[in-house]
Every structure is written in C-alpha cells, then in structure tokens.
C-alpha cells in the first residue's frame, strides 16, 4: 500500500501514480503515526490522519527510527494492528490489543457523516477549548479514549426565513380575528339562549309594569296632598295600648327613646318617632334620645330637630336631649339600664350630663317610667326587652316597620311590651287617636295607594298567569 503524498489516497503496492490525483507516488516505505498508527509518507511533518507533529512526536516519544508499516489492502485499520508488531517498547506496544468487529470497522467515520447542512461548522473559541484533542482518528487497537465530560454541541442551524404554510397562516388569521372580536357584542345567542331570553321577557315587562304602577300610585297622593284617598281608618289595639302608655305618664316625667334603626328604614320609622315624641312633648314630658346604632344618633337629631321646629316652644332644647351613640350593642343597653352616666359622659352637642335637667333624679334607664324602642327588626326590640324591660321592669313601647309588627304581637300580648306602633299606618293611627295629625297622616295616602296597587298587581298578574295556563292547555 502506497499513500499519495498529494491527496492521501491509498494505492496498491507497486503503483507509480496515484489513482486519484495522478501524482507520482514515492517508492519509499511509509512510516506509522505513533499515536493513531496511520501510515504517513517518510518525509511527512504531520500525521495525515490525526495531525500529530510527527517530528516532535518522534523526539518526545520515540527516539529510534519510525517503524516501517506494511499496509495490507484490507483497510487502513489493519495497519494499526500490524503496528502492534513493531519493536518492543514502541508506542503501539503499550496499547491493548483489542480487535475491532467487522461491522464497526466498515462503519463510516463521523466526520464523513457531517454534511454542511448538519450545522457542523467551525466552532467558536470557547467551544474549541472544550473539544477533545486527539480522540478522533482511526482506531488502532488501543483502548478507546474516554469521552469528554462536556460534549461539544453542533452549532444550531439557522432557521430559514420561509413563509409559514398556508394552513398555519389561515389558523393564525382566524385566531387574531377571534381574539380581537367583542364576543359578547357579536355573538349570536344559541337557540336555547334565545328561548331563555324569550321566557325572561315577560318577567322584564312585569318588573317594568310593577315599577310604573307603584311610582304613579305613590306619587299622585303625594303631589295632591292626600287626594281622594282618606287617611281615616280603624285604630289597631297595639297602637291604642301604646297611646295609653304615654297618656298615663305624669307631666314632667322623663321618657327614653332609643333610635335603633338605619336610614334605609327611616321612611317607615321617622313618622313613628315624630308621632310618639310629639305626643310626649305635648303632654309636658321630657325626652331623652339615645342609640346603639352608628346612624341612630344622627337620625334622632333629624327627627328631634323637626319636632323642635314644628312646636317652636321656648325651652324645647332642655326638654328634648339627644344623648348620642353608645358602642357595645347589648352591653351598652345593659350599661344604660344600670347607670346612664356610666355609659355616657356628654350629649350630642357635647354638654355634660349634669347640665341636663331631664336627667335629674335618674340613675339608669331602668328607673324611667317609659322606654320607647324604635327598632329596625325584632332583635333590636328583643335586646331592650332582655336588658331593660325584664330585669328592671321598665315599661316598653315598640315602634317598628309595618313588616315587623306581627312578629312583636306575642311580646305585646304577654305584657313585655306595652304597645306596638307599626310603620306609617301605625303612626297615622296614633296621631288620629291622640288628635295630633302629623307626618303619619300626611304620608298615609301614598302608602295606602301603594299597598292597594301592589295588591291589585298581584291579583291581576295571577289572573293573567292562570288564563295563560288555561289557554296553553286548550292549545295542546
């Protein structure tokens, strides 16, 4: 086997010219590379296979002349095996004599596999430093060198700027349209939604009808100051009992009024407050207002202010006192019942309690001859019954929204409440009974008209539903 010095092609023994490039072949024997065993020309400076500096290699490794290699025709790898037979102490003799299986021997080298498209281009400097120096090369029967710990990646191939396939572009366009679209505005309702919407339409019209009827029925009496609707009517027994409880108090006595409601219920309870307090003042009583609700003190001030202005009597400020808000819920009520001065130090306007004549001779709310509770619900009244009425025996009258009144009847019939005034209707009845018509009587027309309109609506709608059901059955 003779190697061409020009192109490195192996040529048959005895060849004079390279069968690949046509160069004249040297007849001298080749020398084997001490590292990979590849045959090289006698005057070669570097190994044609692994690139080893053959001159220095000879100096460093092998002092004697490089061994001659008789390369058989079977393949280059056979040269390595033959190199094992070189003189003792040579570099190849230190290698382990493992054989190479034929399938691996005939396998292509990785360098030959790497095509330009595979991305195996020149490495950057940092990656070059990691590259194994002499791991490649034709296996010469030595131990297979250890793989580098850090692999050198192939350079990623740059992606070409090719347009996306039509189906991808279509999908992207569709996504853009959908994501930009106002779905709620443009989406067409499904058939089930259309059916649901159709079913809801009568309810919507019903609500609108209710709103209109109630608005007209309440506004007309207000604008006509009562109009054709009379404020007369029977006096409910709980209202009559409440009026008796006030009537029985001697002039100069002090009554406590607890404002335990918020502004949402003021429409129903302010007339009650004004009717009861107006009657008390008319009978020469002193009135103390207090609240355990944050809004109660301000609502009390509004009611008391209206009463003061309506009566326009001298000394009214001393007879009607707003003690303000006390925190603590039931604990505050209990404290007030035991000792008002322990729970409150000044009134709404900041006056000390010692300056309030209505409080002279009074220790706690339990000592008072009458306590009026204007409660938003049953629980508000219950708290005063439990903390003031039951332990101290103070007479209690409740003013509540009309909705709550039936729930307090058991307390009234059992004697825990002297009387109950329910809503605007109760206030109007109280005013008629005491002969002091006020906001209750004036508001009753609107309330009555609204209630009748509501009752009429309920009955009418029921008749309408019943007729509709009947017609549907006949239709089937």
């Amino acid at each position, binding site marked *: 086997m003779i190697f061409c010095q020009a192109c490195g092609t192996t040529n048959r023994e005895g060849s004079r010219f390279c069968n690949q490039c046509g160069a004249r072949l040297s007849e001298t024997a080749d020398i084997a590379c001490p590292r990979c065993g590849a045959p090289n020309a006698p005057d070669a400076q570097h190994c044609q296979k692994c690139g080893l500096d053959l001159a220095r290699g000879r100096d460093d490794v092998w002092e004697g002349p490089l061994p001659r290699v008789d390369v058989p025709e079977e393949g280059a790898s056979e040269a390595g095996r033959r190199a094992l037979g070189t003189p003792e102490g040579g570099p190849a003799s230190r290698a382990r004599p493992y054989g190479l299986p034929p399938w691996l021997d005939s396998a292509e080298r990785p360098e030959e596999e790497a095509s330009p498209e595979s991305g195996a281009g020149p490495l950057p400097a940092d990656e070059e430093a990691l590259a194994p120096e002499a791991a490649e090369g034709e296996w010469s029967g030595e131990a297979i060198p250890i793989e580098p710990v850090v692999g050198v990646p192939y350079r990623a191939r740059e992606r070409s700027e090719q347009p996306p396939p039509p189906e991808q572009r279509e999908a992207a366009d569709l996504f853009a349209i959908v994501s930009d679209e106002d779905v709620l505005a443009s989406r067409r309702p499904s058939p089930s939604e259309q059916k649901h919407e159709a079913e809801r339409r009568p309810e919507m019209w*019903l*609500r609108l009808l*209710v*709103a209109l009827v*109630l608005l007209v029925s309440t506004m007309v009496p207000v604008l006509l100051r009562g109009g054709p*609707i*009379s*404020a*007369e*009517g*029977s006096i*409910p027994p709980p209202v009559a009992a409440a009026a008796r409880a006030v009537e029985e108090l001697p002039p100069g006595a002090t009554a406590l009024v607890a404002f335990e409601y*918020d*502004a*949402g219920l*003021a*429409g129903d309870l302010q007339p009650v407050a004004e009717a009861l307090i107006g009657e008390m003042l008319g009978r020469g009583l002193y009135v103390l207002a207090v609240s355990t609700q*944050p*809004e109660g003190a*301000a*609502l009390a*001030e*509004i009611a008391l202010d209206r009463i003061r202005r309506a009566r326009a009597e001298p000394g009214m400020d001393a007879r009607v006192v707003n003690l*303000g808000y*006390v*925190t*603590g*819920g039931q*604990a*505050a009520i*209990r*404290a007030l019942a*035991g*000792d008002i001065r*322990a*729970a409150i130090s000044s009134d*709404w*306007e*900041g006056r000390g309690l010692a300056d309030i004549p209505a409080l002279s001779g009074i220790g706690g709310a339990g000592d008072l001859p009458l306590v009026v509770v204007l409660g938003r619900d*049953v629980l508000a009244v219950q708290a005063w019954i439990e903390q003031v009425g039951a332990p101290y025996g103070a007479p209690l009258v409740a003013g509540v929204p*009309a909705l709550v*009144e*039936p729930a307090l*009847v*058991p307390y009234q*019939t059992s004697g825990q409440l002297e009387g109950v005034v329910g809503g605007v*209707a109760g206030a109007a009845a109280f005013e008629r009974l005491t002969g002091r018509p006020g906001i209750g009587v004036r508001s009753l027309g609107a*309330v*009555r008209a609204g*209630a*009748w309109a*509501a*009752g009429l*609506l*309920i009955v009418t*709608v*029921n008749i309408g*539903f*019943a007729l509709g*059901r009947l017609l549907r059955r006949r239709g089937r």
Partner: protein
Amino acid sequence: MRRILPALVALLVGSVVLLDYFLENPVLNAAGRFLLEGAIVLAAFALLLGLWNLLLVHERQIRRREPGWPASVVILLSTGASLALGLAGWGSEALTWFYRFVLFPLEASAGALLAFVAVSAAARAWRLSSLEGGVMLAVGAIVLVGTLAPQGAALTALGPLRDWIVSVPAMAAVRGLLLGVALGIMATGLRVLLWIDRPYE
C-alpha cells in the same frame, strides 16, 4: 396555656355578668358594671379597627387596580370627608346636614327599591298553581289590604280578618320561632360557659 387562659377569662367574665343579671349583690353588681364598661370600650376599639381595616382593604384595591377600584376611591373620599366633618364639628349643623341631605336620601332610596322588588317577587311567587301558593296569595292580599283599609270602605271588613290572622295563626308561628331561638341562645351560652364551644380561640 394559650388555650386555657382565654377559656378561663371567658368563663369568669360570662359567669360574673350572668350572676349580676340575676342576683342583687353589691360586689357582683359592681363587677358586672365594670365588665360592661370594659365591653363598651372594647367595642369602640373594635369599631376603630374595623374602620382601619376598611381603609386598608380599599387602599390595596386601588393600588392593585383591582376590578371596581374607582368605587374604592369614592369610599375612601367619603369616609375621609365624613370623618373630617365629624372631628371638626361634632354635633354641628354640618354633620346633621350630611346625614339629612346625603346619607338619608341615599339609604332611603335604596330601601324604597325593596317595594318594587317585593311586589314583583310576590306577583311571581304567590301563584294559584298549588294549595300552598293559593294560601299565601290569599293571606298576603288580606293582610296587605286589611292593614291599610280606610274607614267606611267596603274593604274595611278585611280589618278584623287581618287582625285575627296576625293575632292567632301568625302569632302561634312567631311564638314557636321565638321559643326555638331563645332555647338556641340558652344552649349556645351554656356551651360557651361550660367550655364546650370556644369561639374566642
């Protein structure tokens, strides 16, 4: 200790206040009064804490631009305005004006909406489709119209009927409810005093 101490405090305080309610004893009554005053002070602090928490929650909502944050701005501004108004002139005309012309109409309007909702709900709920629905419809109509029937009108006859409904069947039902609630409150109170329930933990 962390569990026992609160329980002992609850047991002691609850027992003293309960005994103060039933017994006439100067020492017990004084102790009960002292504890009640403490409860009032604590409630005032709880109110302040609630206000502080409200401010923190809405400040965070504004800072994070959470949904509805403009409403939080309004809440904070309103709270600040009413607080300043109250602190500057407690009991003054300005605070009364604020209640009378801002808070009162707003809450009264919201309360008035209940009438619309209640009537439209009643119109749909009280239907003659069943016996129960028919009974509800009849009772509701009688109580509604009977409460507000004018003197001398044809509907005045509904007044006594309405009074009977309220004072007999309705009162029986309400009494049952009230007794049940009272028993429930007693049982809850005893469970707390006997250390079975510990809501303060």
